[in-house]
């Protein structure tokens, strides 16, 4: 059950480029969550900015319960994230969590997850990678970013023991080009059989990756991001167009409660 928690900033570390990892502590045990679920963070007591901001939850809950800490990996993209980066301990931050539907990949026994991250999209895939590792599975991470300066954003995921292949737009590290091209090359080389894709990143990157999945016949889940006011289903502002199998018309589903993780094959990009 989601609830509003008055969290305390315990650290807000610079991770490289304009990326930060904020750790928030709770005075009470937090409800458990799934990889891919998100929280709505308030950015202060004032009314400007007014709305909370959605962020993927970066860490996994403690296996035995009694989780008292939640992390968010973020990149400064606008005014809200810039304000977030200025928070220092012991600032208090209200956070509504856990929200949305996380990753529950459709897969057969033995299927391997291929995690495809575009930039800070790695934030929602990291806990999925951690959960896979915890269960003794071997996920593959394809991490695409602009330049080598951002590669540090995937370091914590790689450090879990996740096989990681990197692409950069400028070729300063790993393969040169988009991560969707890297995905295509990897699937061509290793085959699609036994692979389930989980993708998170900018919309054009997810669209391109979903296209690769369709072409190569792979199951693909995407974690979407839309501007949203509430995060719990009442504003109906965060909709995404979908066309489920057999449907003629486009339906609008709410990213916050019907997602953020959705089946890529249904999305009208």
């Amino acid at each position, binding site marked *: *059950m*989601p*609830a*509003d928690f008055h969290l305390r900033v315990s650290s807000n570390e610079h991770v490289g480029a304009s990326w930060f990892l904020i750790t928030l502590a709770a005075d009470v045990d937090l409800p458990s969550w799934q990889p891919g679920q998100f929280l709505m963070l*308030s950015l202060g007591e004032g*009314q*400007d*900015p*007014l*709305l*909370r901001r959605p962020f993927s939850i970066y860490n996994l809950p403690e296996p035995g319960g009694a989780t008292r800490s939640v992390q968010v990996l973020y990149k400064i993209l606008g005014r809200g994230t810039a304000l977030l980066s200025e928070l220092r301990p012991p600032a208090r931050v*209200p956070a*509504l969590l856990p929200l949305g539907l996380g990753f529950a990949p459709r897969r057969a026994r033995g299927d391997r997850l291929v995690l495809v991250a575009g930039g800070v999209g790695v934030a929602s895939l990291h806990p999925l990678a951690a959960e896979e590792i915890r269960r003794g599975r071997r996920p593959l991470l394809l991490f695409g970013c602009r330049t080598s300066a951002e590669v540090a954003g995937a370091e914590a995921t790689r450090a879990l023991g996740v096989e990681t292949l990197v692409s950069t737009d400028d070729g300063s590290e790993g393969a040169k080009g988009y991560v969707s091209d890297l995905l295509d090359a990897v699937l061509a080389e290793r085959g699609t059989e036994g692979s389930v894709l989980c993708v998170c990143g900018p919309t054009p990157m997810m669209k391109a990756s979903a296209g690769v999945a369709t072409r190569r016949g792979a199951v693909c889940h995407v974690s979407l991001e*839309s*501007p*949203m*006011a*509430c995060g*719990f*289903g*009442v*504003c*109906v*502002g*965060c*909709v*995404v*167009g979908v066309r489920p199998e057999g449907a003629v*018309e*486009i*339906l*609008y589903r709410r990213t916050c409660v019907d997602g953020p993780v959705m089946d890529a094959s249904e999305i009208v990009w």
Partner: protein
Amino acid sequence: MSGAPDLSVALGPLRLRNPVLTASGTCGYGEELAPYFDVSKLGGIVTKSLSLLPRQGNAPQRLAETPSGMINSIGLQNVGIEAFLADKLPFLQGCGAAVLVSIFGATLDEFAELAARLDGRPGVSGLELNVSCPNTLRGGVEFGVDPESTRRVTAAVRERTKLPVIVKLSPNVTDLPLIARAALEGGADILSLVNTFFGMKIDVAARRPGLSSGSGGLSGPAIRPMAVHLTYRLARAVRAPIIGIGGIGTATDALEFILAGATAVQVGTATFVDPCASAKTVAGLADYCRAHGVGRISDLVGAAHRGVAPAGGSGG
């Protein structure tokens, strides 16, 4: 002062245990708020506006944040009256708060038909006519900006229901009291105001409007002073009970409207920011009454008018 303050209010035929309602379009069908607080603490819930048939709403992007506010263009996405009666009403019937169903029609007949379908339904305490939605091509604000259309749509609904009828007014008019009087002539029991103000945001990087539909409706604390002013003005112009709406998120905000002449209030955009904002407003009103020796909150309705000479509404 001894005992709990009396927060109950009467708006014509509609009695509420306290003056705080959740505004249409900000609380879904009520059940979405249930994980966060006991909704029976509310005076009432105003549902998302319902149409006869389900509506898909407008294409995204539907939201843009603005200084101390936001602009939306949802386009009344809703499940339609059939699914509402089958799937959503049962929760509301047992929720313990008054249930006010917001209805929206593209035509007069659609409004009348919706009223007829809801008349006599157990658990429905009243109807709010959305004649003021800025985000639809037909219906909505088309009715609410014209006095004769407002009178006719209200009369058409009045003819088909015994339920208390609230008409939700648009602020996007030159003469709000004129529209309000037309609604009352049509048989409205209560007036609620305001719906959102027309607003627009331009995405400078993309050099186009920030919302797919171009413009939308502005809500949030940014509109509160304008909404308080319209409430104050309307309270001087008509005798009908008023529900104040516009940027209310705390008891202090609610009190501004009550003192300006509103008998009840609706909490809207604030629920997006804090799902418990409406419940906290109820608690805050009780605290205020206790702290200031107010036995009955209804004694405060319109108190800001006392001792103020009648004057022109607009500044200058």
